[in-house]
């Protein structure tokens, strides 16, 4: 429905700036994400009154205050549940859920995987700075093993979640990864996410200058990013590298990095990215790629509409029930099995 309501008046990015002072630390990656979201919204031409941003608690979760839409700053970890209720109550709304790695992977982990499983039509942006920002620097479920943080003075001893892997494990239909240093790609990926029907999860590798500065530098750094990132596009070969001469091939059940031109490898051998494949085995391999063996995959890794959304199916069931109601009115219902005493 939301898509149908086109507006005459042009909505600009400025329309999406709220009157509140943005209170993130200078240099925080969150600013760039906010800006990219505002651009994406302006471009998407969705009716601005239909947009709702919902978040949990964390630095990232202050987001709704800074964007001029309907907004709900919820409870730590519970944004996904609040957003679910909003979308189910009014499926016409364009719902965005903003969350951090602590918010969605720690306390909100269960709501996150259930949201993904139910495939409720909304867009999740996961600000992954691999640290608890707002509480000042404890490790999160995505913090690399061995990291020394305020709550792990001897290094963490937990395997970090990879959000994409967990999304696959919960049967997600959309997953993308972007870095906060590339505004244009962010905006494009957000636009893709907004087009997808079902739960779309975008993981943004976000820098926390204060408590985890440069955590993503091996991926986002100017010198290394071309070699350490592979930006995936549906239908395009999986090529990367400064020289655009590296690529991925599939060998049995594993991906391998190859160099085009070496060992007889030509561009034709390189795997073509099929984001739309309902079978997510390859997506599962792609989201798990880590340095140094592999480049880190960015872009839309999975985009599939192979299963109905919870909200649409519920609407259908309600329509069907209304078309053929068991009883016509509440009065009729409560009067069933009744008897008159005179």
């Amino acid at each position, binding site marked *: 429905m939301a898509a149908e309501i086109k507006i005459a008046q042009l909505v600009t990015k400025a329309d999406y700036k709220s009157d509140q002072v943005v209170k993130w630390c200078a240099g925080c990656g969150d600013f760039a994400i906010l800006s990219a979201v505002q651009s994406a919204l302006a471009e998407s031409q969705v009716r601005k009154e239909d947009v709702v941003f919902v978040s949990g608690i964390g630095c990232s979760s202050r987001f709704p205050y800074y964007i001029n839409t309907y907004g709900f700053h919820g409870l730590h970890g519970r944004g996904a*549940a609040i957003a679910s209720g909003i979308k189910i109550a009014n499926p016409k709304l364009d719902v965005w859920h903003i969350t951090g790695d602590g918010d969605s992977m720690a306390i909100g982990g269960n709501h996150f995987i259930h949201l993904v499983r139910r495939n409720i039509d909304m867009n999740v942006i996961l600000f992954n700075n691999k640290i608890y920002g707002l509480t000042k620097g404890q490790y999160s479920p995505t913090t690399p093993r061995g990291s020394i943080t305020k709550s792990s003075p001897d290094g963490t001893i937990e395997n970090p979640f990879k959000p994409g892997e967990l999304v696959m494990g919960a049967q997600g239909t959309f997953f993308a990864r972007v870095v906060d240093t590339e505004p244009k790609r962010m905006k494009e990926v957000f636009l893709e996410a907004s087009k997808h029907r079902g739960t779309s999860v975008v993981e943004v590798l976000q820098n926390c200058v204060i408590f985890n500065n440069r955590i993503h530098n091996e991926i986002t750094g100017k010198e290394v990013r071309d070699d350490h990132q592979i930006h995936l596009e549906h239908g395009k070969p999986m090529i990367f590298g400064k020289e655009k001469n590296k690529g991925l091939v599939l060998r049995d059940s594993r991906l391998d990095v190859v160099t085009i031109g070496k060992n007889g490898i030509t561009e034709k051998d390189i795997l073509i990215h099929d984001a739309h494949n309902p079978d997510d085995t390859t997506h599962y391999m792609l989201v798990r790629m880590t340095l140094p063996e592999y480049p880190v995959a960015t872009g839309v890794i999975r985009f599939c509409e192979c299963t109905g959304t919870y909200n649409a199916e519920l609407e259908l069931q309600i329509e069907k029930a209304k078309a053929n109601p068991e009883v016509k009115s509440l009065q009729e219902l409560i009067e069933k099995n009744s008897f008159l005493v005179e």
Partner: protein
Amino acid sequence: MLKKPNKVIEVDAVVVKFAGDSGDGMQLSGSQFSDTSAFAGNDLATFPDFPSEIRAPQGTVAGVSGFQLHIGHKEVDTPGDLADVLIALNPAALKANMKWVKNGATIIIDIDNFDNKYYKKAGYIEDPLGDGTVDGYNVVKAPISQLSKSTVKDLGLDAKSAERTKNQFALGMLYWLFNKDLKYGEEFIENKFGSKKPLLAEANKRVLRSGYNYAETVEALRTTYQINPIKDRKGLFRNITGNIATSWGLIAAAERAGLELYLGSYPITPATEILQELAKMKHFGVKTFQAEDEIAGINSSIGASFAGDLAVTTTSGPGLALKGEAIGLAVITELPLVIVDVQRGGPATGLPTKPEQADLMQALFGRNGESPCVVIAASTPANCFHYAFMAGKIALEHMTPVIMLTDGYLANGSELWNIPKIKDLPEIKPPFVKDNSDYQPYERNPETLVRSWALPGQEGMRHRIGGLEKEDITGNVSHNPLNHEKMVGLREEKVQRVVNCIPELKVSGEDRGDLLVVGWGGSYGALISAVKDCQAEGKKLSLAQFNYIKPMPKNTAEVFSRFSKIIVCELNMGQFANYLRMTFPEFKYLQHNKIQGLPFMISELKEKFNQILEA
């Protein structure tokens, strides 16, 4: 049409207890006989009690499932203290219930199950029929299993299904004993199995009649009883349980508000049935979301409320504990939300299938910070409809969470309900605003202090709310000390002003007297019965039963002041008494408490009241 027995005695009321194994269909036959009695114009109250296991081992006391029914020619307020008639389909059922039957009661047993093996399973050392256990009772030993099976022999049922008809045999005997028309019993079976399982329908009907016929021939049942229709009632009635009444009351509130009903819930005994009932109501636009847990349930409801539905979450005590943080969110965002807590025995998992009133303090205070919300309680199975409706009305009109307390006793118990006209129910008018108005989310109605409500999708009304303290009027985040104090005060005062929208406290009985019995919620039936009995004996006591708990009715202190003594009776350790002490410290409160996972008995209450009155 059926030959009349030798002797018919007219009685005012009778209490029947059905007891057997969990799989024996005791709940079904109980409901069946309730409906029949209702159609026959009797007043009634019922209460099932079942084990917390699904089918605890056959033949053991732990596995006994029971259903108690009180039918009357006059008003009936409880399922009754003790039974006049007990149906015990096996020794365990006898063992579990002997202490709940009157002296001299009629006990109908399935003699086919009274063998050595079953005595032992039930924990009897000797044959209870021979060791004096049932001396002084009118024991009817009927070969129920055997006769049931032979009745359906030629129908080609499998052994299990044939065996399972035996509840109808026992029931048939009751129809005889109480001169009830088999027609209603048969119709019930027809509705239950009817078109889908015609063979089962036929079998059950046959066995029902077979039991009836058997009873007619048994010496011990020569005398039968007649409970005449109740006279002082008029209107359209039906038998209803608290959980169903709650569900329908919520639908009615949504309808009168012109909103859709949203339920975010997670199954938990004894609240699950509300979820199940509402899940069937999609034709009314009802949306039920079975969440992954209680926290997701309430948070999704908060979302649905933000989006403009009448949002509800239902649970029991442990679930309410999990929802505390989110209730605080609804308090600070000032969104309408109904939270139904069907109380059960605690603490922790406690006694999941037993009623208790021990969540009151939790409902009032179980959250961080100063976090006031409205608390109300239903007091009979049928008035769950009214209080669910009022919960919705108050939530929507006052932009506040409302906790509605019921309990396992109300939820599963039933009584006759005088069916209202939905269109005559009060209107519900949420404080909506028009598109493009000059909207400040925390601007308030100066009289009620209620903020106004703009919904996502409305033009020109974009705004943001959340769980951080908000600035007065604008709703922006504010850490200002004086603003915080002001907002804390406003939230409390807003809830207090709901007092103007609720009825004054009425006492049952004289306006003044020696003793005011105070109760709240589900204990009403036993309390009113006991108070009436004492009043009939000429005692000067009255009952004040609270349905509105926060805020309490305006005239509460005034009512209290008109009695020499006050006793607060509750199924907990004294939570309401303590709440009264903090709210009206000027009075002295006596207490009567019981915490056994059981409702009050009328007799114990009377004893207590008399003791105080004589002191």
